[in-house]
């Protein structure tokens, strides 16, 4: 298995500076790109590896995203936590891992997820942004209307 993982790492080359997001829940790499605002028109050098073997993941598979010359800011890490709670964020400087952080679920998340309740005040013309209390892994409760999101969080990302 170790041998297989090493091979997975080698599928794409090491990067000099930037961010490697490892241990993304298999199948969610494209959602991670969506969260980071990386779409088809990007000029960034981005490598995506999907469904490679992983001994840490319960499914035995994981995704990896490498973004060159960009270090993620905390808000971006919070967003990734929502859809890939097992992910690890490695900040790379001059080919070395400068920081290695597991993502952490915040207590409250703002701006990131849209309330599914269209009649919620956070979906109105009032000057207020969405805000959710994080109850548990994968369960969010709107601070305003108390609606619950307990599945498919990626579908509600702003």
């Amino acid at each position, binding site marked *: 298995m170790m041998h297989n993982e090493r091979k997975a790492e080698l599928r794409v080359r090491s990067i000099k500076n930037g961010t490697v997001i490892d241990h993304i829940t298999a199948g969610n790499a494209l959602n991670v790109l969506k969260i980071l605002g990386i779409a088809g028109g990007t000029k960034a050098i981005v490598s995506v590896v999907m469904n490679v073997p992983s001994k840490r993941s319960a499914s035995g598979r994981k995704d990896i995203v490498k973004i060159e010359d960009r270090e993620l800011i905390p808000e971006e890490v919070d967003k990734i936590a929502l859809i890939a709670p097992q992910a690890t964020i490695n900040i790379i400087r001059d080919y070395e891992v400068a920081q290695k952080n597991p993502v952490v679920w915040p207590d409250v998340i703002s701006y990131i997820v849209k309330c599914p309740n269209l*009649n919620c*005040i956070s979906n109105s013309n009032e*000057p*207020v942004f969405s805000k959710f209390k994080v109850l548990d892994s994968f369960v969010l409760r709107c*601070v*305003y209307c*108390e609606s619950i999101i307990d599945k498919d969080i990626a579908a509600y990302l702003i």
Partner: protein
Amino acid sequence: MLLRAQKTIKASAFNTYWMLEKQHIVSMRDFTREDVTFILDYAERMFPFARTGIELLQHKILALLFFEPSTRTQLSFDSAMKRLGGSTLSLSSEDSSILKGETITDTVKVVEGYADAIVLRHSREGAARMASEISNVPIINAGDGAGHHPTQTLLDLYTIRRESHLENLDIALLGDLKYGRTAHSLAYALNMFDANIALVAPDGLQMPSHIVDTLDSVTVTDNIDDVIHEVDVLYVTRIQKERFPDPNEYLRVAKSYRIYRSMLQGARDDLIILHPLPRVDEIATDVDQTKHAKYFQQAFYGIPVRMALLSIVMDKLL
């Protein structure tokens, strides 16, 4: 000195949310069982003054902001404030700033300069919570869309405690449990008191599972006959016509959930029947004359409960 004594009572009686958050009344989620018990006890002390009045809030002004029409709740708050010697300002959905499309945010920021507390009703869920984040005076939620109506819940609990009992309670909630905001808040609060709750609703109008899942002792059924003989309290809510695309389906369902006097044979002797009102035809008028009917008392109990809440949020305790 008196004020300091009052603050000491409050500091020990209320949880930190209330102490830190300027004592807004937004959702039953913000209250502990101890908070609720304190409020109900305090409403009991206020009860003798619900008819005679007491000069507790002279020179205080309560703003009633009703972005959505309501007669009963507005009248009840108006009466409670005046019984306390205070006065009220009203803004209704017919008034010009609302018709011109002013945001709640702007309205609240203006009105907080004119009043010592604001009662807010709005058609959008979460409106009162948002207002509480921006207001410098206490916000009292008088209904936010299909969300919460905590003062209704507190007066329901007060009625249940006064006319029946809150400990070891068997209660059935009947009607539109999906959209009915009173039912959601009440179920949550009753669970704090370990009530056995039967949810009786037609298909498609049953209480959302994310609420049912939080209840510790709950039965779900679509047939009132399953439970009517086994409860201390029957809480009836309205089934709204607009929830049904087919008018004939509405008529069929509404009829099967109507309470008649004859259905009460075999019910517990001390059964009480409650309804947040207004009633359309969920309870036949022949029930009104039975000893079980307590819905008009329930409406009256809104006065001592709201007097208690206004006195607490405006920091002038009896």
